[in-house]
């Protein structure tokens, strides 16, 4: 039988330490919805999403009530949309609008997969699709977009990197009235994964089954609290405490995931073992690092503490779930993490330190606000640096930056809700334009040659 201590530990995790299942994401294959025209394809996609995901919110709410674990978001991810729009280049936004309608109809807060995978090359229809992203993000509320520009296997498509710098700028301009909010829904990846449940980068890969449930767990507050209770632990004990805590958090996610897939008649995909922060106090990854012994996140030692945290989360989580996938690690989105916001505000956390941190955790330069006058080439260069880290280290990296129109270093931008608020962070001054404009591909690294 369970001990009282164990039961109240779980209650405390939920009540005081913000334990939650961050998202239940249903991946849906839309390949069978491809038609000749934009209108027919959009309608077929709409119908399929509305039918497959009809009960996702209802089931999520019921599970939350029965198990007493908050399930914060219910979401949908779809087949990369560039594969659906090949027949009607130039009219891609017809699909985007209909996807937004479908998301609203089933009641999910985001739908991911307005995406293209161009790591090795870009077809004409993919270029046309990518060109449609700024408009698609401006005319929709819930559609999220991602583009994969590199991989360890194929290298980095510098042409795509250059284009994405432009697309990020155009998206910011097109959504100027909301401080470039469109960019918060746009991720540029290297080594994108096909089963990621988290937004804005979720899409449903072509190697996936027809209808899949992927679950992202969370709980930075729980880890923080566990460390707080052991102020004198040495660093190996810290790793052990994190492992044990991650195990418990993930087991809760595993239970919800298997039950959700059963009730929704979908395949159980993966549990993503992630520590995903929210902007509220007590739910911060940065505060875990500070609890380990940093005065402020971003100072020297941050990368080492984060490496330990990320690794311990994976080790604890991997035994707790039958299927692990997605991004699985600690997230460090600046605007969505109370401690990160503080670190950036007081200047201790810089873009360069963030870049180093991304080498040891998932995912990348995430939800970082930069000056509105940052050039497209500089944004491309930030993307190139991140992609290089991902490519060489065989890991997923991403860039989600918001060049906030008409704002500069020292200003703040508010996105609200889970997306939080962020100080505008400085970028390097010198130009990388010549490098970006060279075009071509950065060859895959030597260690990609494993066959």
């Amino acid at each position, binding site marked *: *039988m*369970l001990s*009282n201590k*164990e*039961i*109240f*530990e*779980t*209650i405390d995790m939920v*009540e005081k330490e913000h334990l939650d299942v961050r998202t239940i994401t249903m991946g849906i294959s839309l390949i069978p919805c491809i038609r000749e025209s934009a209108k027919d394809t959009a309608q077929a996609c709409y119908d399929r999403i509305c039918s497959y995901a009809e009960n996702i919110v209802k089931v999520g709410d*019921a599970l939350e*009530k*029965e*198990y*007493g*674990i908050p399930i914060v978001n219910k979401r949908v991810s779809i087949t990369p949309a560039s594969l659906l729009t090949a027949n009607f280049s130039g009219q891609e936004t017809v699909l985007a609008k209909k996807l937004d309608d479908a998301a609203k109809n089933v009641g999910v807060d985001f739908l991911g997969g307005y995406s293209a995978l161009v790591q090795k090359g870009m077809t004409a229809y993919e270029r046309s699709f990518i060109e449609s992203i700024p408009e698609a993000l401006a005319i929709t509320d819930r559609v999220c977009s991602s583009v994969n520009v590199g991989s360890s296997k194929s290298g980095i498509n510098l042409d795509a990197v250059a284009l994405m710098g432009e697309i990020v700028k155009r998206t910011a301009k097109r959504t100027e009235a909301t401080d470039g909010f469109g960019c918060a829904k746009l991720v540029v990846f290297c080594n994108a994964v096909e089963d990621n449940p988290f937004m804005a980068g979720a899409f449903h890969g072509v190697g996936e089954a027809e209808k899949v449930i992927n679950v992202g767990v969370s709980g930075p507050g729980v880890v923080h609290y566990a460390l707080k209770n052991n102020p004198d632990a040495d660093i190996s004990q810290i790793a052990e405490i994190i492992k044990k805590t991650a195990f*418990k958090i993930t*087991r*809760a996610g*595993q*239970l919800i995931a298997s039950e959700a897939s059963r009730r929704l008649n979908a395949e159980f995909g993966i549990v993503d073992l992630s520590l995903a922060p929210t902007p509220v106090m007590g739910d911060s990854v940065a505060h875990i690092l500070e609890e380990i012994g940093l005065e402020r996140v971003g100072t020297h030692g941050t990368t080492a503490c984060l490496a330990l945290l990320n690794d311990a989360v994976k080790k604890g989580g991997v035994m707790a779930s039958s299927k692990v996938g997605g991004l699985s690690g600690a997230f460090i989105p600046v605007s969505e993490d109370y401690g990160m916001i503080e670190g950036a505000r007081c200047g201790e956390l810089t873009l360069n330190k963030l870049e180093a941190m991304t080498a040891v955790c998932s995912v990348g330069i995430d939800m970082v606000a930069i000056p509105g006058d940052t050039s497209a080439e500089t944004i491309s260069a930030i993307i190139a640096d991140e992609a290089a880290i991902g490519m060489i280290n065989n890991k997923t990296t991403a860039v989600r930056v918001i060049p906030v129109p008409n704002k500069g270093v020292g200003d703040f931008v508010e996105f609200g809700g889970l997306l939080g608020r962020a100080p505008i962070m400085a970028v390097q001054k010198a130009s990388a334009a010549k490098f970006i404009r060279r075009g071509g591909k950065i060859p895959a690294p030597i260690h990609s040659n494993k066959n």
Partner: protein
Amino acid sequence: MKAVVTVIGKDKPGIIASVSGLLAEHSVNIEDISQTIMSGNFTMLMYADLKNSDLSLAALADLLNDLGKRIGVSIHVQHEDIFNAMHKI
């Protein structure tokens, strides 16, 4: 289906009576009960069986939540599987 009911709050007469009364009204059987004062707080833990109950777990959760608000304590009811998953291998 087995569920765990937890009650946390300031101690006062009648907490157990109100909770167990509500459970009895809906044919929820109490299999085990323990109560203690932890750091000044009244805490009670019940193992309940909903096999013969007219209520779903979700509906019971709503009723207990309302009762908790009325008598000024926090009441949760959760499927026992969540605790087993998190604490037992």
